[in-house]
């Protein structure tokens, strides 16, 4: 039976027809469909989305998809990574038609991300340490703390409540100030930066720490070393910890305009 759709992994800069072998989802044969100097990296599949009730199987598919993107990056340099389960209706000609129609857009994006990669930065801090810093710097809080130690139980309770609230607010604004400061140190070294208030995963060693900031950065290959130095300096500050991972394909930075 002829497979009437194409599962799309990424778009790369290459003009040659290459076989990547059986490295695709469920060992599908991955190959490229070229148009001019760009190409889509695909495997032939049925015109229906990948769907299963089996979680392990689904996770396996996602990892296989990720592996193909890594291999394509090794072969062709930075690629435009596609999300899981993007399946183009039709055969190789349909893929070629799309490449032809969207050529300017795709080639432009490939040029924009050429020689770059995505890196992920998470900055954690020791919350208790930050609080002691804030407390030490603020005379009003120091006075309040002293009055708690001298006061009766009931009064001490009210004062403690007041102190906790003030300390919490001040620590919160200090966190914001530090995040801004680190961001301004990182920003000049990267081509693009996206701030996120969350992270999908926290390694065990940072579990007790507070997440100060998460950044996704598009970084030129030659700027990675310098960025590493800046992050090292942050990591060396007492009470701060940096997790720096990559390089990844530019998942957070591909912008494709809608074509009619």
């Amino acid at each position, binding site marked *: 039976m002829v497979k009437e759709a194409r599962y799309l992994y990424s778009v790369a800069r290459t003009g040659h027809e290459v076989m990547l072998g059986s490295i695709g989802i469920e060992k599908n044969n991955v190959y490229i469909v070229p148009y001019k100097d760009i190409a889509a990296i695909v495997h032939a599949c049925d015109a229906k989305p990948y769907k299963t009730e089996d979680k392990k199987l689904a996770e396996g598919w996602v990892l296989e998809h990720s592996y193909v993107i890594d291999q394509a990056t090794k072969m062709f340099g930075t690629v435009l*990574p596609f999300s899981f389960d993007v399946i*183009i209706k039709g055969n190789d000609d349909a893929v070629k038609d799309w490449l032809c129609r969207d050529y300017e857009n795709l080639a432009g994006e490939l040029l924009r991300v050429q020689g770059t990669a995505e890196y992920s930065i998470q900055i954690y801090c020791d919350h208790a340490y930050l609080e002691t810093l804030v407390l030490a710097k603020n005379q009003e809080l120091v006075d309040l703390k002293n009055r708690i130690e001298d006061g009766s139980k009931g009064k001490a309770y009210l004062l403690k409540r007041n102190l906790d609230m003030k300390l919490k607010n001040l620590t919160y604004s200090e966190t914001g100030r530090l995040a801004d400061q680190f961001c301004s140190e990182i920003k000049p070294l990267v081509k693009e930066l996206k701030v996120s208030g969350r992270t999908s995963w926290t390694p065990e060693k940072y579990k007790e720490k507070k997440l100060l900031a998460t950044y996704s950065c598009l970084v030129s290959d030659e700027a990675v070393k310098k960025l590493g130095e800046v992050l090292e300096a942050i990591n060396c500050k007492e009470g701060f910890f940096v997790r720096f991972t990559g390089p*990844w394909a530019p998942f957070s930075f591909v912008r494709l305009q809608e074509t009619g």
Partner: protein
Amino acid sequence: MNPERESCLVEVLDRLLNKGAVLNADLIISVAGIPLIGVTLKAMIAGMETMLEYGIMEDWDKSSRELYASQETHIPLFPGEQILYKTFGYLREDEGLIKCWVPGIWNITSQRVILWVKTPGKVLFETPREELRILRVPASHEVRKELELIYPEGSARISLSERDEFEEALAWAAEATEVRKESELML
């Protein structure tokens, strides 16, 4: 420092399911114009609340938050009852056909622990704070932080991103009650 190529499965899933380029619906497999890009997988792997946490449904979340904001309702309190602490969280609903995590605002008051849903204005769970005990549920999930609330009539499983703070607030509220009782006795 050098970047590490360390990535756990959750991060790979986050990248591949939530990020990366997509194409418009007329080119790709879709149903009624809705692209089927990993929709089923996202739902299955991540689960609804995780999708919120990961931001998959950020737009939905934003609009529902706006809806919450637009419909002002107030939590019914006893005379003299004060809200001491509140935080966003979930209650595990295991009864009935659908087992799910119900979102709402967890309130610790001077008398009770209440799960309040602002829209349409409904108390989903309440128990007197006195005689309430809490237990930490071991992490069965990378992200969710769960607690077991144990009260005389039964128990409930809840999930909070600010679990530590909630525990502290509860301990603090208990302490405050003790202090108040003592001062009332003195009077």
